[in-house]
């Protein structure tokens, strides 16, 4: 007997209603890096002790005697730590940053090449990354529709996949236009393989890309539709969030349908694929996104990312 059908919107509603004021998280960041700068201690601007050693991970941003963010220039990066480093020439300040500007989440086709650095400002680059993923999910849904047809899935699922193709095309166009306004030009993703795969392979990809990544992305899109400071982006996300919730539902419906047609071994492989994707999301969700991008895109603070992902894991992924 297969598990009961998951209703994505009900779960989203339950999570959002019990969410703390600020949620956290972004999707696994295709690009991020840790940068360290050591420099002579900046001159104190105010009287009193402005700096003492700070333990990694215990950044006292508010209410503390030290604020790394005020000492470490952070216009283009998230300050994660700072510390005093002794030297012969006097104390030095060591600032550690994490830079990540990709937050989009969605169904990636097999063999998708990562987005190589684009032009534009930080928000523009983030939008270009999102448009790139939206465009990449078009062939992913085209392939899913073809594979569902060949494997005899209900017409309702095939129609939903075809509808998703049209919607993702529209998303890519909308977000791509916004990226261009910010000086970034999203590249066109190269198409990967299109051959029809065995049902267990289709189900494995659907579990990772649809039930995990796309589901998280849909929840995040809903959050962004409320919190984005950039008006044009927020308007786009109001449309996209509804579509993405449908795409997430499609993923769960496909999973539900496929489960009954797979043997125990194949079901274990599908489950492993889903768990690997969950681990990837958990690992990456806590990565900070550049302040300006997070504000414009309405991204939640990474400090609570684990809470959001854990909620999904408890309610949908366990």
């Amino acid at each position, binding site marked *: 007997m297969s598990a009961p059908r998951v209703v994505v919107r009900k779960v989203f509603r339950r999570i959002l209603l019990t969410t703390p004021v600020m949620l956290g998280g972004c999707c*696994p960041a295709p*690009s*991020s*890096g*840790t940068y360290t700068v*050591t420099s002579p201690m900046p001159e104190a601007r105010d009287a009193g002790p402005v700096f003492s050693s700070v333990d990694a991970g215990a950044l006292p941003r508010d209410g503390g005697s030290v604020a790394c963010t*005020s000492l470490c220039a952070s216009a283009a990066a998230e300050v994660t730590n700072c510390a005093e480093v002794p030297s012969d020439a006097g104390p030095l300040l060591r600032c550690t940053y994490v830079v990540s500007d990709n937050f989009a989440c969605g169904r990636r086709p097999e063999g998708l090449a990562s987005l190589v*650095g684009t032009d534009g400002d930080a928000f523009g680059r983030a939008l270009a990354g999102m448009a790139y993923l939206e465009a990449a999910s078009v062939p992913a849904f085209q392939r899913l529709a073809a594979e569902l047809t060949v494997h005899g899935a209900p017409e309702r699922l095939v129609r939903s996949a075809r509808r998703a193709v049209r919607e993702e095309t529209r998303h890519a166009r909308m977000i791509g236009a916004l990226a261009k306004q910010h000086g970034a030009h999203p590249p066109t993703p190269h198409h990967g393989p299109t051959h029809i795969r065995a049902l267990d392979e289709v189900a494995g990809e659907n579990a990772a890309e649809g039930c995990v990544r796309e589901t998280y992305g849909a929840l995040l899109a809903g959050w962004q539709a409320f919190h984005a400071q950039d008006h044009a982006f927020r308007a786009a996300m109001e449309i996209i969030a509804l579509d993405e919730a449908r795409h997430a539902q499609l993923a769960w419906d496909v999973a539900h349908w496929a489960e009954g047609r797979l043997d125990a071994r194949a079901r274990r492989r599908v489950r492993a694929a889903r768990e690997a994707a969950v681990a990837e999301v958990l690992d990456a969700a806590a990565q900070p996104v550049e302040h300006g991008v997070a504000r414009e895109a309405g991204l939640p603070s990474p400090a609570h990312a684990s809470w959001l992902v854990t909620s999904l894991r408890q309610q949908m992924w366990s």
Partner: protein
Amino acid sequence: MPLRMPVLAAVLLLMGCPALVTMTVERKAEAVIPACTPGQAPPPLVFAGFRGMDLLADDEMERQRVSWDDVRSVVPIQVSLRVSQGAQDLSHLRDVQLAAEALSLGRKAFASAQALPATGEAELNAPGIEILAHAKSGAMTVSTDVTYTRCPAEDQAVEATVVFELQVTGNPLERASTP
């Protein structure tokens, strides 16, 4: 007994073990070191073009139909910095280190320089560190550690160049040459 190794080598050759071909990929990226803001440390040295790199997203690699299954080794063999705008002086930088990063993989330093010259160009020491796992992630970022001895008096644009050497099995090259 002494004959065993040559015999084994000959057998392996006859079995058609694919030969490795060396290919290079050069990547350039630019970062701006701004003049210092009073009361603040200089910002991180972020080479935007080195973020989320896929070394196979390269004309030659695509022409040769190289996939990550064909790549056996990736080593940065040459790393340099060049001032592209501003004072031709890099001596305000020392202990510069470039590292490969990728999701779920640790940071792996592959090039460094302890002191940079008072000229507009400098070569970093690249001892031949293997970064295949990072490169294979398809979204490798090259991040930097840097120590400033002082801030530049005016904004300075610096271009970094990294040459990666890839060991690729011969098979894709043969495929590409097939009409």
